[in-house]
């Protein structure tokens, strides 16, 4: 059997599992069996392409998982096979996983990292200045360009509307350069209406470039359409939406990011250090389990260009430096100098 031959009917394995469910559950666990051997970036192509193999494969996974989890796991696995086969046929080569660098998060996401062919929605927490989500997205883009060999030279499409430019400003080349992103790769689209932004995102996906877009809101149909385009072309979209609006459906993942007090600066205790983010995964299509639990605290390093888990939220006492209060003077702009 040629393992690369596509499965003529990918739905069959599911039926196979449901027919032979009682038997494998009663089997004793086999030594060395792992629930999902294909998650760590191995090609999952040795999986049953034939009906006859299915019971045996199902037996393997019937270790001690409850029935629901077993079915969910297999379904996710089939989904990833199908998606990956499409990616492979498009790319002609295997993709590296797109990881954040923080292993605890990457392991939760399944598939070794973020989905390279999906829409990832990132929302700011309500409390920050709104830039935490954007900063997080830029850093994910840096990770993406660093890890995908073919993405290191392609442009990055940045799409916004005029309105959000007035509110949030524009990308600044020197700042992006510090992150490790060549600003000359950036293609900026400033559209008048959000429908034009959606069109531009789709065009970008068709050209297989990573897209970062800022929108107030995205409706169900548009999100589904972008999701399909991302999947078909195997490139991701990082979608920044307004935190107050309803989340989009049919995204590969949804994150809520807010800023945290930064790490200590190496040389100056009073200066801001490496930025930290509180990251909550609110949705993950491949791994529903990833959304549970406490938010993670991630710290970005400009030197290694990766995120790092910060063990436990360090809640420093935020006190202004001890000083004579009389020295501080309120200076409304435009009023007398010094006096």
């Amino acid at each position: 059997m040629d393992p690369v031959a596509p499965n003529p009917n990918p739905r069959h394995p599911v039926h196979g599992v449901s027919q032979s469910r009682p038997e494998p559950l009663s089997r004793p666990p086999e030594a060395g069996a792992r629930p999902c051997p294909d998650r760590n970036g191995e090609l999952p192509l040795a999986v049953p392409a034939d009906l006859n193999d299915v019971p045996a494969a199902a037996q393997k996974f019937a270790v001690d998982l409850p029935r629901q989890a077993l079915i969910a796991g297999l379904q996710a696995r089939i989904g990833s096979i199908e998606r990956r086969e499409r990616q492979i046929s498009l790319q002609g080569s295997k993709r590296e996983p797109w990881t954040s660098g923080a292993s605890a998060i990457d392991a939760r996401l399944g598939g070794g990292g973020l989905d390279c062919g999906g829409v990832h929605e990132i929302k700011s927490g309500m409390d920050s200045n709104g830039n935490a989500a954007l900063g997080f997205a830029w850093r994910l883009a840096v990770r993406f360009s660093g890890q995908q060999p073919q993405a290191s030279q392609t442009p990055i499409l940045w799409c916004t509307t005029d309105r959000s430019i007035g509110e949030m400003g524009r990308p600044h080349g020197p700042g992006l350069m510090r992150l490790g992103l060549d600003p000359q790769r950036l293609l900026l689209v400033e559209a008048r209406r959000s429908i034009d932004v959606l069109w531009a995102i789709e065009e970008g996906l068709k050209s297989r470039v990573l897209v970062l877009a800022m929108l107030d809101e995205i409706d169900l149909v548009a999100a589904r359409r972008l999701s399909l385009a991302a999947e078909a072309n195997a490139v991701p979209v990082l979608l920044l939406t307004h935190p107050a609006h309803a989340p989009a459906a049919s995204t590969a993942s949804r994150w809520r990011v807010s800023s945290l007090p930064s790490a200590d600066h190496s040389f100056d205790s009073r200066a801001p250090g490496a930025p930290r983010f509180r990251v909550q995964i609110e949705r993950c299509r491949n791994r529903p389990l990833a959304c549970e639990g406490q938010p993670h605290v991630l710290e970005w390093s400009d030197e290694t260009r990766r995120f790092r888990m910060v063990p436990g939220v360090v809640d420093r006492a935020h006190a202004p430096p001890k000083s004579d209060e009389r020295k501080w003077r309120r200076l409304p702009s435009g009023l007398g100098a010094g006096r």
Partner: protein
Amino acid sequence: MRESGDACHRALGPDGDPFVLVATGRHGLTVTAANAAAMAESVRPGMALADARALFPALRSGLAEPEEDRRALLRLARWCGRYGPDRNVEIAPVAGGAAGDLVRDHGLWIDITGVSHLFGGDEALARDLCLRLAGFDLTARVGLADTFGAAHALARFSAPPIAMSTPKPWISAPPGLTPDWIEALPVEALRLESATVVALKRLGLRRIGDLYGLPRAALERRFREAKTVSGVLARLDQALGRKAEPRRPLAGLPELWVRRGFADPLISADGLEAETGALLAELCALLETHGIGARRIRLVLYRADGTVAQVAAGTSAPVREARHIMRLFADKLGTLDAGFGVDMLAVEVLVAERFAASDIALANGVDLEASGNPSELIDRLSNRLGPARVFVLRPRQSQIPERAEVRWPALSGATASKSCGPVAAGHDRLSKRPEILLSRPEPITVTAEVPDGVPAAFTWRRVTRRVIRAEGPERIAPEWWRSLARRMPEAMERPGPQDPAPPLGAPLGEPVPRSSAPRTRDYYSLEDTSGAGYWVFRNGLYGDTAEEGPPAWFMHGLFP
């Protein structure tokens, strides 16, 4: 070979009734144009309307609209692009017209050099033109000759007005025989001033042929005029092809031009799209033969009713791939109105460029998207959203943050990178810069120690934030040479390759609205209690002169 068509006024009414157009002249209403029936009653342009009414009391009249006439003629000239790209309207006062300021002689010319074989020869082209003009109900006269001057003379003084019934309504001088064909025409046909015509006639020189034998020196001496262009000798030489006569075409001449006519007008969008695709394939083969690529392309639809619709598309790199060009046009084709049908399609390459070595992959249709060539994406985005909405960032030699980079229209991509000079130098890796720069620094209220303390709290967008950590100041002095340039604008700041003019929409010049001259800035990077980062600056120093005013604080960028 030149061709000159002479289109008369529009809507002169049914042939049966005498009808004139009138305009307000020095002595009341004056006839500016008359139809054939009115001419038969001896009504002539230039007459007072009262005189014309005396000749024919039931004469109907309408008000002349010279501007509308001009526009109609321009539309017709645009439509004449189907016969050749080099064409324009010609508006000149009639020679010898009694009311020269009113009577205008409307004509248009088409240069059909190297084009007529596409129609099966000069005669076939002229027949096609006459038939179509007659179909539009236009009273026109058509002349064909080697030179523009001769064609002008033939069309106006020899050709009959075209009609469907006339078998050969145009006058065509065979190549090389121009002198013989115009010698019998009156001297007015040479486009001379009316005073000159009168003087010539007084001398007994009534026909163009009379001038042939005269000694040139004598002719020149007698008719020496300040405007040598319209001198007798100059006009004669132009008509006979001894002297070149430059003319301006209606639109820029395309580098390459492909067209396709249809026996039955196309109406359906599908048909239009299919034919455009076929035409583009033809064009791209042609581009390949010439070894060039198109940067700007125009698609022109010649509608059956004599109007023209056109769309243009630009590309950021030379292109000769029909699929790509078709995609650029595909969006716009839907918005075009085919009207009563399109009977000719033309694709014109307005700007063409030679391929650079790096563009070869593009030309040969290698898997571009995998190799990461962004130009197709840029083209699609720019053509749909407008070139002023798709940008790339180009670094620039400046320490002032908002001047450190230029937003450059992506469509002019390749030329921009050349003109920007030393590139990477603009982006300094060492200094801390935010990822987001506000499009305009926003004033904030700051609590800080005087004179150069770190802010302890600030109010931005009506929210007060307490500062926990801060770094700074980073002092950025104004660029003195720019304030010098402001004082002496003509001496400095010439638009050169070093300092390209910022594109539309780029933040220009001083971001700080109130102060006139740029001041020293102290930048601070702040972090508030929630951990959000800000980049603020104090514009000016304490201790500046009174006229500069007190320093003010601004929010300029955001850190995560």
